[in-house]
């Protein structure tokens, strides 16, 4: 890392109606460093980056790139100046080929126009270097999420960038893919590029970053080299309170005696991913479903919830065999499912918090098709209070809320149906540490009320903190079952790894 300052943002100020989003923030990035930008959601990270890339206009302050004052009015202008961005939500074009998505806007040209052959050859080479094995001529939408994220990264870093902004690039990657990304990041760093890295995964910050800048409520808290910072210090600075209890294990023990079984899955398999999954969840129990991305976690949840009808094996709810053809049937039997991708499968962005929360129980609170508005308001107010949802009012459109609060509204939607079993698929993905901690407390509270919880998460520490029992799956089948004190990150990883070894052994034999 050199001491040459590549980017300097001075006294950046930005107000939105009712919010002081950035309050005279100073931010400095040196050439050849990976700089973490940390803060809770709403702290101003994204706003600061949008001011940098020209998506937002700043109210005051100045930006110096390589010592020269710059002012970008669009992403195009900042890209031309060498500032490249990878967004948290994958921003690619589904119907264009992989190669085009990497080169769109700067396709190699020959005398007659776009040189498709050269473009595809270069794209293939770039992705091969990144360890991504994919046909570059196929449509992007045919690629999985992780591959798409790698393609977005390839697009950003193989431009003539001097500064790469990465806004939660790892949120949809598994460990191996994250490792590949980090390898690429180190390579870029050696070439003298600067990287601004935003992630909610603290481990990643300590693994890959050189410097951390922490924002809170639109103000700069501190800039400090990573080696002089502990995890706990970082968290407490981000949330601005004593963090000693933030990362603590939340649940007590679980006594199975006398509790009824709410979900029993035996040998659930389908033609796509699942090769025989066995899961039991009892009333008031939090059961984790651990495994790598693509191991069949979400697929199992979808089958259990009646979203994917074709499967073999048996499912029992409250002791009765069931075979759901649609989520409607599952809901009627007391199941709830908070999907992984809340934007796609969860929220109605332009509807109010009130409507989003009660949409599934409208028949219950209506009479002769007419809605009982008083009852609706009662329920909505109760959950806004009990889940501590931060919203100006129940009439607020949900897309104006932060990710964590949107997630809480979704939780409330399912809770007000009073389910027996709730499946939570990555409930804390993409939300900040403070909100995460609140959601985790909620999980315990839900279980405390006697509801069974099936928790799917890629974050092992989340499983360790929250679960009474963890079922580890790999390649669509069970490879381990951990309980109580034996639940630890090491044990989970070991089960996943052993599952792999067993399989190889099987193939060799």
């Amino acid at each position, binding site marked *: 890392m050199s001491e040459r300052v590549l980017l300097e943002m001075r006294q950046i100020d930005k107000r939105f109606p009712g919010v002081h989003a950035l309050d005279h923030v100073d931010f400095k990035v040196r050439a050849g460093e990976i700089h973490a930008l940390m803060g809770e959601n709403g702290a101003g990270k994204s706003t600061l980056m949008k001011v940098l890339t020209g998506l937002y206009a700043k109210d005051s302050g100045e930006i110096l790139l390589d010592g020269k004052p710059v002012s970008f009015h*669009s*992403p*195009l202008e900042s*890209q*031309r100046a060498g500032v490249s*961005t990878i*967004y948290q939500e*994958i*921003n*690619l*074009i*589904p*119907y*264009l080929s992989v190669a*085009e998505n990497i080169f*769109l*806007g700067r*396709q190699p*040209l020959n005398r*007659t*126009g*776009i040189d498709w052959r050269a473009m595809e050859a270069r794209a*293939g080479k770039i992705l*091969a270097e990144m360890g991504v*094995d*994919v*046909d*570059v*001529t*196929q449509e992007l939408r*045919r690629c999985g999420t992780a591959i798409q994220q790698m393609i977005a990264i390839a*697009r950003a870093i193989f431009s003539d960038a001097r500064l790469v902004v990465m806004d939660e690039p790892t949120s949809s990657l598994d460990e191996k893919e994250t490792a590949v990304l980090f390898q690429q990041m180190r390579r870029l760093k050696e070439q003298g590029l600067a990287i601004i890295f935003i992630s909610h995964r603290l481990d990643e910050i300590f693994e890959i970053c050189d410097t951390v800048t922490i924002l809170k409520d639109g103000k700069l808290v501190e800039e400090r080299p990573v080696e002089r910072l502990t995890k706990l210090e970082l968290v407490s600075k981000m949330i601005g309170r004593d963090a000693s209890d933030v990362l603590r294990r939340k649940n007590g023990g679980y006594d199975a005696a006398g509790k009824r079984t709410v979900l029993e899955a035996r040998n659930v398999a389908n033609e796509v991913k699942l090769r025989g999954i066995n899961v039991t969840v009892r009333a008031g129990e939090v059961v984790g479903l651990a495994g790598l991305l693509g191991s069949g976690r979400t697929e199992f949840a979808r089958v259990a919830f009646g979203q994917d009808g074709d499967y073999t094996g048996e499912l029992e709810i409250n002791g009765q065999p069931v075979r759901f053809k649609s989520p409607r049937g599952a809901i009627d039997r007391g199941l709830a499912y908070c999907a992984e991708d809340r934007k796609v499968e969860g929220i109605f962005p332009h509807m109010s918090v009130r409507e989003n929360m009660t949409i599934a129980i409208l028949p219950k609170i209506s009479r002769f098709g007419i809605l009982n508005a008083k009852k609706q308001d009662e329920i909505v107010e109760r959950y806004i209070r009990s889940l501590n949802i931060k919203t100006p009012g129940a009439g607020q459109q949900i897309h104006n809320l932060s990710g964590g609060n949107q997630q809480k509204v979704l939780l409330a939607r399912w809770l007000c149906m009073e389910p027996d079993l709730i499946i939570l698929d990555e409930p804390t993905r993409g939300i900040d540490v403070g909100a995460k901690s609140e959601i985790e407390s909620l999980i315990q509270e839900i279980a405390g009320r006697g509801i069974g919880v099936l928790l799917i998460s890629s974050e092992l520490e989340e499983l360790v903190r929250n679960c009474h029992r963890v079922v580890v799956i790999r390649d669509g089948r069970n490879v381990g079952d951990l309980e109580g004190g034996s639940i630890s990150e090491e044990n989970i990883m070991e089960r996943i790894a052993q599952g792999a070894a067993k399989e190889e052994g099987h193939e060799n034999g």
Partner: protein
Amino acid sequence: MKRKTMNPMDILQKQGALLALAVLTAAAMIRFPVFRQTGNILNILRQNSMIGIIAVAMTLVILTGGIDLSVGAVTALSSVLAASLSGTNSPILILLLPIAAGTLLGFCNGLVVTKMSVAPFISSLGMMMIARGIALVITSGNSVPMAEVSKGWITAMAEASLLGVPVFILLFALVAAAGVYLTRKTRFGRDIYAVGGNEDAARMMGIQPGRVKIAVYALSGFAASLSGVLLASRLGSGQPVTCEGWEMDAIAAVAIGGTKLSGGRGAVPGTVFGVLILAVIKNMINLQGSLNSWWQSIITGTLLLAVILTQVFGERKGA
């Protein structure tokens, strides 16, 4: 690198229009000996070249996720303008001014869609009524005959041939070729797909969706008014009330050609096949004699729905 695998559904989606055209043409050739005559085939092509030119540009608009309902009215207006200006006997005024006017209308349409965020359906519906209204006001609702000074050379244009191929057909071929080149080999052409595929992502990638859209609406206006000039040349007059429903025929041709109406996916050759499919169906009904021409509408509609259903089914399979 993994190799691609083509599933049959993909092929049906991508090449369905060409297959349908081949089957229809073969059927027509077997059933109607007259169909095979060069004269008949050239006639079909010539009659449909105007709608073909419009449909090629419509493809670009639809690829961005938009729609242009004004094209029929702009074609009529352009024919009226050409006829009204025929007294000047100036080729530049008679041929280029209507085209410039049509392009300008398309440009304005694009401005309303982008700068004022009006839905393309509404914006172009308004533009359609305005263009039709202007055409009617200029002519008081009557057809405008070409002035004698220029009528000779203007109508001769419609009959002219190059190497035995009517000029109209050559123009259609030229526009189609330009459309193919634009969408395959230029960055602007690929930006069209990007904007239609995911506008936000396109913006993040440094593409300016507004400019791309304004350009395609201007091109659509250009194509419609070019057709209008050709129409005036063929009829020897300007007609304020013609071309009603051309926008729908053009959209149908684009859809039958496999371009998705939500944008981002499709191609110009498909549209050309779509235009020809509609043309062959029409010709077959004419040659058949006993079916009246309303049947054309029923057959076209059925075909259109069949194509859309294939797309929907293919999407599901692919997902």
